[in-house]
């Protein structure tokens, strides 16, 4: 049976010397979910993971596994396992012995060990390589052994600390797909740490974006991308335009924002009239026309980069703010350099403009 919360971190904090690595974070991991901790290096995501594993004990707060308080419990007594960044396979042990390491520690009967190791090898498509030593394996194969070694113990949660960082681009993409399907097959909760937004977006059920020891935002990939709540999230994930404006009115869930001499609608009504706010629009959501009759925002083309399938336009708004537009090249167009200096109109769907929290 799956518990409602496999892992609960309740107001955990951790300081190293005088830097705060994790600052009063509360996080719950649901049964069977693929949760990603995403953030730049030093944001506290690895420390958070190590708290779940038991390698770090929080200075404040509690760690719960399956409803049980394990805050001070050492790693070897926790039913979670980790896939380490450089795999950390035991160099003196064969693939078989590496995978059997935890089972032997649990005094599992010899026959059962054999069966479970074989099953784990099968699961990561490494059958037949059980006699090899780690140095005889490629990076991708070592990765698979590390996965098998952790999964063979049927942990409550599998923790993965940037497991794909050491692989080349192509293999990384392939492993992303495999990891996701593996997670769905075994049905165990995965907590995955990465600084790579693409990894986070492709694999996760839920993404936790972290910055400076705190959680910035938690949500599905589309929520994180389409509705970032803070400037940090908006700029860490994908490319974004952040534009300053003033609230002039509110209507249902939208606010009316004055941008220069123009008024536009943007998503978010947690505002007061007169507030100076920042709003975010993704470059690909902006529609750019050379037709000036429209009542939309006026801008001038400053520069352009032709990318084949699309063109990257750099615009300047009337009030001096810059904006990037990514336009699909649906029809054959004039050389982009000819457009520099032209006046254009830009507009977007009100749902695509998100007001950021201060």
């Amino acid at each position, binding site marked *: 049976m799956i518990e409602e919360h496999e892992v609960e971190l309740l107001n955990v904090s951790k300081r190293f010397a005088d830097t705060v690595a994790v600052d009063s974070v509360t996080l719950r991991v649901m049964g069977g979910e693929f949760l990603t901790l995403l953030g730049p290096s030093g944001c506290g995501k690895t420390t958070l993971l190590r708290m779940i594993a038991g390698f770090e004990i929080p200075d404040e707060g509690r760690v719960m596994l399956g409803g049980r308080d394990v805050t001070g419990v050492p790693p*070897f007594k926790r039913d979670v396992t980790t896939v380490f960044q450089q795999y950390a396979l035991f160099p003196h042990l064969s693939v078989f012995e590496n995978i059997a390491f935890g089972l032997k520690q649990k005094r599992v009967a010899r026959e059962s060990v054999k069966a479970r190791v074989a099953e784990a090898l099968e699961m990561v498509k490494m059958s037949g390589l059980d006699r090899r030593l780690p140095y005889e394996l490629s990076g991708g194969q070592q990765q698979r052994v590390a996965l098998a070694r952790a999964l063979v113990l049927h942990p409550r949660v599998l923790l993965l600390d940037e497991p794909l960082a050491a692989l080349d681009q192509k293999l990384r993409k392939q492993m992303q797909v495999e990891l996701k399907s593996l997670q769905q097959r075994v049905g165990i909760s995965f907590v995955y740490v990465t600084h790579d937004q693409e990894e986070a977006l492709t694999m996760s059920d839920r993404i936790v974006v972290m910055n400076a020891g705190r959680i910035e935002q938690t949500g599905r990939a589309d929520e994180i991308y389409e509705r970032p709540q803070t400037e940090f999230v908006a700029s860490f994930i994908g490319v974004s335009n952040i534009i300053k404006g003033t609230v002039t009115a509110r209507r249902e869930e939208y606010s009316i924002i004055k941008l220069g001499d123009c008024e536009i609608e943007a998503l978010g009504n947690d505002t007061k009239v007169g507030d100076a706010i920042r709003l975010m629009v993704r470059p690909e959501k902006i529609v750019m026309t050379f037709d000036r009759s429209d009542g939309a925002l006026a801008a001038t083309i400053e520069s352009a980069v032709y990318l084949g399938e699309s063109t990257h336009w750099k615009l300047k708004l009337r009030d001096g703010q810059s904006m990037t537009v990514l336009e699909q090249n649906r029809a054959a167009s004039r050389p982009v350099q000819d457009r520099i200096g032209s006046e254009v109109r830009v507009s977007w769907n009100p749902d695509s403009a998100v007001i950021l929290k201060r």
Partner: protein
Amino acid sequence: MTARVREKLEDNRLARLLFSPALIWLLVFFVAPLLIALVVSLARRGPYGATVYDLTGDNYLRALDSLYLPAYWRSLWVATATTVITAVVSFPAAYYIALKSPLRWRRILLVLTVIPFWTSFLVRTYAWILLLRSEGLINSVLVGTGVIKEPLGLLYSDFAVLVGQVYGELPFMILPLYVALERLDKRLLEAAQDLGANRFWTFVRVTLPLARPGLIAGIVLVFIPSLGAFITPDLLGGAKSIMIGNLIQSQFTLLNQPFGSALSLILTASVLILLAVAMRVGLKTSELA
């Protein structure tokens, strides 16, 4: 001649050039004496100590005489005990220096480990006499504080020999162990714990096996000199604690070079055999590097 062949020749020439000094040294001062010893060991001691070249196996037969067995036996167990005690004492020290000490202390601790080498081994062994003898520091303190009434007979015993040997060999065990442990990836220790191994099992299943090359190097470095030791037993062991090293030394001073040579060769051969066994049993070739 292609460039590659020429390059290879260059390499060979370079190798010869770089190896020659060591090679010449070993030929002149190791192989040649060994051959001389071999020839002398087959000779006979003439009257008045002259060496008579006779081609006889008598010296080797004499070496099997039960008279000398206690010396062989003592050599073997003193060397074994020295090695075991040194390993047990060194491991925690090397472990601490390599894995637990703060980085800025590490270098200082390593220097402290080799500081004894700055003084001659002979002088340091004499220092032990001052510590161990009846009127020495240890007995004076013990008697003075009333722990014991009569001074203990510490000096001139197997105990004294062991103390001196372990003391002298300690750095030769600590250093290779340090090197092996220092290379140990700490994440492996975390991985073991993550998979359910407590500190004890992590040590037995991960730390110890990965320190094995260092341990074996240390064992070889300590056991071989201990087997042939003669300064320590001579100074600290007294007349009762004769080891094979003392036996050899006395044969040469007694002007029985042929018998002394035979004993030397037996010792050398034993060491080589033990080494070969150790390599076979304990050391995979991949670990030699």
